[in-house]
């Protein structure tokens, strides 16, 4: 099984030498178990992948194939997840591929200083994801918008229901036609209610983020998620990641859990993790930019 040119090296993560072995039945991308490649005190977790899938051109095509991307992402995460249970790995971006082992060694050699710096920073920590979703403010009182909610974007609901309003308003209550003035007043009331809903939701998200940040070593804001991709109703108003020492994780989870008791109608808080420190591998602090302010 010598390395040939049609076999490439997929690298999952860089970490310190492992104290405990990985599960023997662990498989990664392509169903192949990852192995450790040691170089001067650093370990790269690598697995062979076929060039027909991972050379630049097929890879680009694959990345637009949701089934392929999903399968590959899950395989990547399976390895990172297993690794996270025995160490604090530095996960690499999905689909980092080298021609052969010597390419991987060169990467470890060239990046050693940077890898050690980040490994030290994330040592003993895991990442927790916290998202806040807000149900559409007029979800219950204005069911007209559900008719045209086919393309996922709730922001467009508000505008598009404006346009088709006269037709639908008439159709819903034929015995009581709205005058133009009544209609405008109604819309104004709805908009005010929406604005207040937004303000409350944003204030809640802001407060939550600030409090969680105080209990974390570091925090990042991801871009809000597209609701049709996340398969979650409503609008994603906070999508954050927190770097938390393992020793404080239980406390952190309880903190998120406690938000359940707050009076926040229409809001949903979702916790994911523990993850490897995916969101904290940058060399410097990069702002996630404006999450929670997606209007």
């Amino acid at each position, binding site marked *: 099984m010598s390395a040939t040119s049609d076999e490439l090296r997929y690298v999952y993560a860089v970490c310190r030498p492992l104290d405990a072995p990985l599960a023997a039945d662990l498989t990664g991308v392509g169903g192949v178990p990852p192995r450790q490649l040691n170089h001067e005190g650093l370990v790269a977790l690598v697995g062979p992948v076929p060039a027909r899938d991972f050379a630049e051109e097929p890879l680009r095509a694959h990345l637009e194939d*949701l089934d392929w991307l999903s399968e590959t992402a899950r395989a990547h995460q399976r390895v990172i997840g297993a690794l996270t249970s025995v160490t604090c790995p530095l996960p690499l971006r999905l689909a980092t591929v080298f021609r052969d082992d010597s390419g991987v060694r060169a990467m470890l050699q060239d990046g050693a200083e940077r890898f050690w710096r980040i490994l030290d920073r994330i040592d003993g920590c895991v990442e927790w994801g916290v998202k806040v979703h807000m149900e559409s403010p007029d979800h219950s009182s204005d069911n007209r918008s559900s008719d045209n909610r086919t393309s996922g974007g709730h922001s467009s609901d508000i505008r598009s229901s404006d346009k088709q309003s006269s037709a639908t308003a008439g159709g819903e209550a034929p015995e009581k036609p709205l005058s133009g003035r009544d209609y405008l007043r109604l819309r104004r009331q709805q908009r005010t209610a929406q604005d207040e809903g937004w303000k409350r939701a944003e204030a809640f998200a802001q407060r939550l983020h600030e409090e969680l940040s105080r209990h974390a070593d570091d925090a990042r804001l991801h871009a809000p998620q597209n609701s049709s991709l996340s398969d979650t109703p409503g609008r994603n108003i906070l999508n954050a990641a927190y770097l938390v020492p393992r020793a404080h994780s239980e406390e952190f989870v309880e903190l998120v859990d406690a938000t359940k008791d707050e009076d926040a109608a229409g809001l949903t808080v979702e*916790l*994911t993790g523990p993850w490897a420190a995916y969101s904290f591998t940058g060399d410097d602090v990069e702002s996630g930019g404006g999450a929670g302010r997606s209007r």
Partner: protein
Amino acid sequence: MTVVERREIALVDLLDRLLAGGVVITGDITLRIADVDLVRIDLNALISSVNEQVPSPWPDSGPMPSSRMELE
């Protein structure tokens, strides 16, 4: 602490981390794939194609709305 249940990870959460996070190294092969902007564009294409096939974007979407906490 019963609210947080461990279920299958939602793909969208995974992609947030795998495509926007992780150390970017210019591998031998994937010089351009590692570019964040490019990945963003690919993801946008994905999102629009997903929107066309509502409601079930991917086959294994069984229990996917993952661990949610209802706030009442």
